[in-house]
């Protein structure tokens, strides 16, 4: 019995390796995501958004000569070791043309440095925000539509100042995204003349943060700047703060932007009390609305963290392949800039047929993403636009001025 199972497993493995040979009429792009691991709860929506873009491409004529656009999943686990392993499989076994994602900055960094750059494969990240990604010696192979923490942190500090905050307490989860953000924010806010009354790390995934919050509240700041992922500590901190009347006003960033925050805490408790900064085209802008409507139609919430970026990278990868005219790794990098950067025919999320026709006609195109206009600079980074969101009357995340 057990022997049979082992034999079966071996046979299945052999079959899998065999099946890795690309079927004709298919263009494969690696979709690396931290599906398991510490941010598992965020990644579900991210993967759905990437798949939506692939669906758009396939429903509207497919890639090149009608080939299927296939996203091959790879689990980066938010761990550089796992990411290198997943990357090696995508690049070598699956023979993907490009890779989107890897999610956590550390995983992205490891995968880029030790797999994709040496192999000459373009990596297009949707969520890696660490400044160190810009510093890679990448032969123009690493791009990202997520903006560096540096810029976002400074922007948020300015917006906080503009909204009249002068004394703020900061708490951040000890992960790469939130700790980097907090550091930039605190420096920028102090430079503006504000006071940071306390800047404390917190270990994610604890059952209660009342003690830490009480300590931070002791200095009586105007509000709490909360850099955390909503699942691992954000919601718990909001709940502890409100239930104990420790903090009433909150500022934060996209790691907190999720419907479940409103669902869990209640819209009435948050309305007017929380502002979250999100790098995205302003809600109401045509690119964002195009994406949001389509994503909502699939039963997903468009205001979840990073989903707009995830849609964009998936769509952009397809555009670049179409532009390059072949599923050839070497041509993607140059094509990516051409399809993303102005000038050209403006393409919005979901407009694959239009883009395909324009490329076929030899026109230059300019993708305006759900997450922003997307203009890659020489480092492969974008300059973000940010919206500040609060809880609207309808109980959803709504931009505030």
């Amino acid at each position: 019995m057990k022997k049979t199972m082992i034999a079966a497993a071996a046979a299945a493995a052999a079959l899998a390796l065999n099946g890795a040979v690309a079927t004709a009429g298919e263009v494969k792009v690696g979709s690396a995501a931290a599906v398991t691991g510490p941010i598992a709860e965020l990644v579900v929506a991210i993967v759905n958004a990437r798949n939506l873009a692939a669906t758009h491409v396939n429903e509207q004529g497919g890639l090149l000569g009608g080939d299927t656009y296939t996203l091959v999943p790879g689990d980066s686990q938010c761990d550089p070791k796992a990411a290198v392993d997943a990357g090696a499989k995508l690049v070598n076994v699956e023979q993907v043309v490009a890779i989107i994602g890897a999610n956590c900055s550390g995983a992205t960094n490891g995968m880029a440095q030790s797999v994709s750059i040496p192999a000459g494969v373009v990596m297009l990240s949707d969520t890696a925000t660490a400044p160190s990604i810009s510093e890679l010696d990448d032969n123009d192979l690493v791009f990202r539509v997520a903006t560096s923490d540096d810029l976002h942190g400074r922007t948020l500090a300015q917006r906080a100042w503009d909204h009249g905050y002068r004394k703020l307490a900061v708490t951040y989860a000890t992960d790469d995204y939130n700790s980097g953000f907090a550091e930039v924010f605190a420096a920028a806010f102090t430079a503006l003349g504000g006071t940071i009354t306390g800047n404390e790390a917190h270990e994610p995934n604890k059952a209660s943060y009342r003690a830490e919050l009480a300590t931070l509240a002791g200095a009586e700041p105007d509000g709490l700047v909360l850099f955390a992922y909503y699942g691992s500590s954000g919601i718990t901190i909001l709940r502890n703060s409100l239930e104990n009347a420790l903090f009433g006003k909150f500022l934060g960033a996209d790691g907190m932007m999720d419907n479940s925050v409103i669902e869990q805490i209640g819209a009435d408790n948050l309305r007017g009390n929380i502002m979250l900064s999100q790098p995205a085209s302003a809600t109401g802008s045509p690119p964002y609305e195009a994406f949001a409507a389509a994503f909502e139609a699939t039963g997903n919430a468009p205001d979840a963290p990073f989903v707009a970026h995830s849609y964009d990278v998936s769509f952009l990868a397809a555009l670049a392949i179409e532009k390059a005219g072949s599923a050839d790794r070497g041509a993607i990098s140059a094509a990516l800039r051409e399809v993303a950067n102005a000038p050209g025919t403006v393409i919005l999320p979901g407009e694959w047929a239009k883009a395909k026709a324009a490329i076929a006609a030899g026109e230059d195109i300019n993708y305006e993403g759900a997450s922003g206009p997307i203009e890659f600079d020489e480092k492969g980074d974008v300059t973000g636009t940010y919206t500040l969101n609060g809880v609207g009357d309808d109980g959803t995340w709504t931009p505030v001025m």
Partner: protein
Amino acid sequence: MIEFLNFYLIPGLVLGSIYALGAIGVTLTFGILRFANFAHGETMTLGAFIALSLATFTGWHPFAVLPIAMALTALAVLGMDRLFFRPLRHGSTIILVIASFGLMLMVRSLVQLVWGAQLRSFGQGIDLPWVLFDALRIFPKHVTIVCAALVLMLAVHLLLSRTRAGKAMRAMADSPDLARLTGIDTERVIVTTWIVGAGLAAAAGVFLAYDTHVESQLGFKLLLPIFAAALLGGIGRPYGAMAGGLVIGLVEELSTYPWIGSEALVPPGYKTGVAFAIMVAILIWRPSGLFRGRVF
């Protein structure tokens, strides 16, 4: 002073009673089956999700479905024991530890397959506390959690002190070889152990989910503090585990109190480390637990 009660002591007690329930299962498995069960955290997660599904399905209060959830979790754990632990029981301890590690991976991914990785909760919105004397803030949910935990601990006490099965468990935790010699049916004791441990783990998971929320890694996050609690109380000693759970919960919360000056005593980033540091210190200086020599 009142801050100390509101934000440090009471949360510590709530957390401590949840740890305590989890630690009883760990200490019993460690004492009777002789291995550290890494899948215990996933048992909590499983219990919380089962209760969530039941509560959603019936529309009842989570505490009303708790007994059913505890029973179902116990049943599931018995099945796991039958499939994965029993065939290895006569091998070395380390094999069981590795099996429990494999089981941890399996249960967690199964929970993620069935319920997804997103976070869920029993209720929405925030609870407002009763304010006593204009200052003391007591949350109804915390009162219910602590009371329910006390009831369960009392039940464990009655089981251990009044029933044959409980006495047999204690004897086996104390010395399995001798227990076997005196004709205790070890397989039955093992079954009881799994039922008690899994039931309490499910309850701990539900309580934590009721206080905060539930997601697929809920139990895994609690695993190490619970090990610390079980060690603190002395392995194989359910009463010690209860006390150890309370102590770990309290110390974790109290460690960030500004005892000296206005800064937190331990930087909050190191809060988790407090439980581990205590655990290591206990192991080195009082390896048989804080309550050595005391007869419970």
